[in-house]
């Protein structure tokens, strides 16, 4: 009876830790950031074409990185594809890095707690 009442708070604590260490979904964040980047680049290209149809500068500089991109209607679609790709990679990588760092913290604290638990045993050797 006494053991059961003690297990309750510990399980609750364990669950709380698991929830706070919950991962970001890599693919979903990639899709979300990719979609917003693609849409932004598409709209920026269209706005540029409407407001300054003669000059592609400075948005056209993106062609240095995005092969096939230009400030034109077809370029807007090419930019959308590139924007999604770059945004997806950025979102995925960010989630990966964040989850890895959090996982490393979790491992560190768990190892330290386990070491602290065995300290008493080591004193008896």
């Amino acid at each position, binding site marked *: 009876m006494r053991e059961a009442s003690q297990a309750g708070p510990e399980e609750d604590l364990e669950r709380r830790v698991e929830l706070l260490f919950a991962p970001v*979904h890599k693919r*979903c964040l990639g899709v979300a950031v990719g*979609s917003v980047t693609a849409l932004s680049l598409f709209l920026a290209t269209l706005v540029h074409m409407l407001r300054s149809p003669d000059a592609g500068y400075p948005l056209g500089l993106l062609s240095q990185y995005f092969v096939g991109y230009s400030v034109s209607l077809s370029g807007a679609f090419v930019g959308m594809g590139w924007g999604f790709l770059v945004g997806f990679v950025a979102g995925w990588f960010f989630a990966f890095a964040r989850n890895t760092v959090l996982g490393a913290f979790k491992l560190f604290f768990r190892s330290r707690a386990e070491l602290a638990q065995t300290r008493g045993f080591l004193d008896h050797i």
Partner: protein
Amino acid sequence: MADPQALDRNLQRINLRAWGLGLGLLLGLGVFVATNVLVLKGGPDVGTHLGRLSQIFPGYEVSLTGSLIGFVYAFVVGYAIGRLIGPRRPLEGATRKDPLHTHVRLNGHAWGLAIGLLVGIAMFAVTNVLLARKGENVGELLRFAGLYLPGYEVSFAGSLIGFLWLALLGYAAGRLIGVVYNASVRRAEA
């Protein structure tokens, strides 16, 4: 038994640190790769435009060394941003009871506000840093932002207009990321 609230605060601090490190690495690598793509491409006038980052990041240049300096600057900026936009309650809105299969949810409104304020303040600060530096062609490249943000110009009044525009657009972008992400996670977890 540790105080649960103190434990939550500590865990949230670790969570924010992880967001900072994640975004710092992303921005740092972004500047590093963008610089080295231009360095590898070569040409007579490499990085005329990207080199303007040195206006904001002293010591930066479009070279291998510059890319490392840029990495450090962008990492620091990304870390600060990550700590600001990281969710305080990572599982807000989560419905699943099984923690092993539950992913973080994003609060779209909070994300929108954070991203909007950050990009707005960045625009305000960059414009005014350039104004304070003075020179012949102040904000030669930045003034093109007026194409996308009606009313914007490289002046103090323009910096306020730029702040409002980018705060609005940043809010919309952050909100949209939250909506798409949460919908995708719901589908993936179903």
